[in-house]
């Protein structure tokens, strides 16, 4: 049983708690729930695409469209962002040596907005795709699903802005005066940079959502060409938020890897300064590349060139992180315990994802890959590859410190190999599917041979990854209740000093 829960405290005390560890764990529970239920939607998608033809598993195209829309929205906003907030909530006050977050009540409010948002998205089950491009989303998408999606994302956006403000103030103002910022953990830096990006990026999409809603009501025509509006304007507003958002997903995972890699390599980080510099560089350059998602909307040659250069400029920062990890591992006495395996697997997939990204941004090649399965494979290698694998690795890493129990290493490694091999198979195959011209978001494909076999390989990989996620869930649930008591001084038996993760103020 989880240490935090094991104490004789009634459930409502945990639910109404404003203590940062309670809220952090609530975030983590909610986000792992989202990972599992959102992932099961993906299993359904892969089952439908296993064979050509319609209605194998999913009865009609409309249901299929709703399923991939909710899968995407759910994974991005209720798995990736809340998990990072959860770990941030748990660790940031400990790492900056303060008793709690700067505003504990605001923190609780920010969390409790998320289940509401998630309920709206799931109960609505919209078919707009997670980008909700108008005019489809304003003229054709059936209500009330689309309205519920809009309000769900609105609430999720406000929640993450409130959480981000709390993190920024906690880190910059509540940090212990004896602790300079350049001596804090790189995870603190990653949370700080992410939070600043959220505050800058989210308001644009928040405005676009309101415009989308009034357009749906018919009282405005911002994006409705029949009323003189411009649908492409929405895409600019959308991607101005969501290209930086890609780095918002990425950077907390990078921060977690900076915790894991030196520990299990039994070496200090190769270059702390280079890690900080790469965070800041990525945060700035991340705002200069949004329209690389829009080359095919009829942009001029000059615009395309500008955004290609902006995109390429973000690559060295990511490359610096990878270098830093490799240089840290180089010559270290590495112990491939489960957290380290998940971390290194994530880095391998991150390399593929980055290389594929350079292909996407090279203008002539983008017209080969854009909106094809290549893109699906590419971004999943980021969000399911690096980010999810780092998150799961970090869950295993924090597990003994949070629960006082040890997970089963064998189960964790089975989960790792299934997940890592599964992801490699499904998403690298999807790159090839894209080159054969299969568009994304399709209920069916042309029944010709390379497509059929490639889709079947992809489905098998997808199910392997799903099985891996299932084993992960099983291992943490059983270990939380029945796991062996962990050696709290060195649960991974690597002879290293750990952060005093359990040092925190009493509950209040």
């Amino acid at each position, binding site marked *: 049983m989880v240490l935090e829960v094991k104490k004789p405290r009634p459930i409502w005390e945990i639910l109404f708690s404003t203590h940062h560890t309670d809220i952090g764990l609530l975030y983590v529970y909610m986000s792992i729930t989202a990972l599992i239920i959102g992932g099961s939607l993906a299993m359904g998608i892969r089952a439908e695409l296993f064979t050509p033809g319609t209605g194998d598993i999913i009865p009609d195209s409309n249901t299929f*469209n709703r399923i991939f829309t909710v899968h995407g929205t759910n994974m991005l906003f209720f798995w990736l962002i809340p998990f990072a907030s959860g770990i941030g909530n748990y660790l940031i006050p400990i790492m900056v040596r303060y008793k709690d977050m700067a505003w504990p009540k605001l923190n609780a409010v920010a969390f409790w907005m998320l289940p509401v948002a998630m309920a709206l998205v799931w109960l609505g089950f919209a078919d707009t795709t997670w980008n909700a491009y108008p005019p489809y989303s304003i003229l054709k998408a059936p209500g009330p699903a689309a309205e519920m999606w809009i309000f769900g994302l609105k609430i999720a956006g406000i929640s993450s802005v409130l959480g981000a403000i709390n993190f920024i103030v906690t880190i910059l103002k509540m940090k212990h005066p004896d602790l300079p910022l350049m001596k804090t953990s790189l995870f603190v830096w990653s949370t700080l940079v992410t939070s600043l990006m959220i505050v800058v990026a989210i308001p644009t999409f928040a405005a676009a959502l309101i415009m989308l809603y009034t357009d749906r009501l018919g009282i405005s025509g911002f994006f409705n060409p029949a009323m003189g509006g411009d*649908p492409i304007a929405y895409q600019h507003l959308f991607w101005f938020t969501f290209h930086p958002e890609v780095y918002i997903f990425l950077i907390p995972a990078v921060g977690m890897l900076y915790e894991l890699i030196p520990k299990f390599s039994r070496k200090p980080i190769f270059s702390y300064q280079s890690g900080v510099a790469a965070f800041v560089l990525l945060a700035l350059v991340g705002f200069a590349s949004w329209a690389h998602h829009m080359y095919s909307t009829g942009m001029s040659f000059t615009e395309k060139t500008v955004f290609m250069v902006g995109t390429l400029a973000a*690559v060295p920062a990511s490359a610096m992180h990878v270098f830093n990890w490799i240089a840290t591992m180089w010559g270290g006495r590495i112990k491939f315990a489960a957290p380290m395996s998940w971390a290194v697997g994530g880095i391998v997939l991150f390399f593929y994802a980055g290389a594929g990204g350079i292909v996407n941004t090279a203008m*002539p090649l983008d017209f080969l890959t854009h909106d094809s399965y290549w893109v699906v494979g590419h971004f999943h290698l980021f969000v399911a590859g690096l980010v999810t694998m780092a998150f799961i690795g970090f869950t295993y890493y924090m597990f003994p410190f949070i629960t006082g129990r040890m997970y089963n290493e064998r189960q964790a490694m089975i989960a790792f190999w299934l997940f890592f091999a599964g992801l490699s198979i499904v998403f690298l195959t999807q790159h090839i599917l894209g080159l054969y011209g299969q568009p994304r*978001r399709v209920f069916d494909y042309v029944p010709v041979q390379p497509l059929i076999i490639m889709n079947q390989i992809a489905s098998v990989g997808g199910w392997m990854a799903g099985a891996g996620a299932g084993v992960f869930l099983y291992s943490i649930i059983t270990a939380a209740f029945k796991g062996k008591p962990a050696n709290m001084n060195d649960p991974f038996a690597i002879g290293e000093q750990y952060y005093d993760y359990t040092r925190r103020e009493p509950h209040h």
Partner: protein
Amino acid sequence: MGHTTVEWVYVGVVVAILCYVGADAWNVERILDITNAPAEAEVIKVTGQQWLWTFEHEDGRKEISELHLVKGKPYRFEVTSLDVIHAFNMPDFTTLIDAVPGRINSVWLVPDQSGEYLIQCREYCGFSHYQMRAKLIVEDHEGGPSVANAAAELPSKGAEAIAS
């Protein structure tokens, strides 16, 4: 610890690769840009709607869900949409441009191989997006098989979907 020569060299190599990719992409895209479309290119008006494609040749011939081109002849496609955003895509010729209502986007092509190819929609556009396809027929020379009745004969999957 901190930056060392190795890291600077590594960053330098990465930047050099990126510069090469960027410069080469710039150079190729410059040639492919619509401003370089041959002046004598035949203009074909492409209209997307839920969930079929209509093509109008310069001489007024209209085709639905089927497009006949001639090998080696330059074409300029002027693409728009009647309802939501679609994307006009001929994957075998790497031709892709969004069909946006209220806008006309242009792309050009000289088909260099004859045969039958796929035209498809590549931007999510609702219920029958997955079967919003058309047939591209590239003929070896002008006056191949007649296309006059193509529209009447062709069972368009998109049209079927609307009717059902």
